[in-house]
């Protein structure tokens, strides 16, 4: 029997694509959460997980493009997705504002991801009825 309660979720992804299975496990879990009628408040990318938001990843055409697959799900369901700014800047993930601030030659944040602070994660902990983490398995 499916639970009649509608729950809200924050998903935190700390494992990177092509380094860990985390983006795939998290995506399949997110699809199942939505299919069960629950809500995803936000997706937060932390640590190596921020690589999921790089528009520059160019995997071979016979491999899954996790940035694109996640982008489609987030857009279709209007789920806010945030890459931690401290994790992102260190690893070379920039939006146009950070590109300008640090005078870098390019920005590479994929839509619909945004860059923001750990406060977004703290808020997720406070607001969502469930927080589920997807770490690197290595």
């Amino acid at each position, binding site marked *: 029997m499916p639970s009649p309660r509608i*729950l809200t979720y924050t998903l935190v992804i700390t494992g990177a694509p092509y380094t860990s299975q985390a983006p795939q*496990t998290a995506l*399949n879990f997110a699809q*199942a*959460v939505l299919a*069960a009628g629950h809500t995803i408040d936000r997706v937060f990318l932390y640590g190596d997980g921020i690589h999921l938001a790089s528009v520059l990843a160019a995997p071979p055409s016979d491999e899954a493009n996790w940035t694109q697959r996640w982008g489609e799900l987030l857009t279709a369901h209007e789920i806010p997705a945030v890459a931690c700014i401290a994790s992102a800047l260190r690893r070379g993930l920039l939006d146009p504002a950070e590109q300008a601030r640090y005078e870098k030659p390019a920005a590479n944040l994929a839509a619909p991801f945004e860059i923001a602070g750990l406060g977004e994660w703290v808020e997720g902990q406070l607001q969502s009825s*469930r927080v*589920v983490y997807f*770490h690197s*398995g290595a």
Partner: protein
Amino acid sequence: MTTLHILNKSPDHPRFALCLAAVTGEDQLLLTENAVLALADTTLTLPARVAALAADMDARGLTGNGLSRYGVGFDHMVRLTTQASRIISW
């Protein structure tokens, strides 16, 4: 308070033992990703309430007799997260 423990590390990873040390008899353990290899590890004793993502088992060829009873889908994983009062991802 029942806890859902989501474990994705291979049995050789230090966090595998750390997770098992935190599981009580009432807790639910869900094996995902490389952790499903624990079902084939003859040196391990797993807690009573254990399930594993069927896709991760099948992907690794863990389809032998007696193993399929552990396999669950992502819909069941969601149900486990709704039932637990606390979730720890190891």
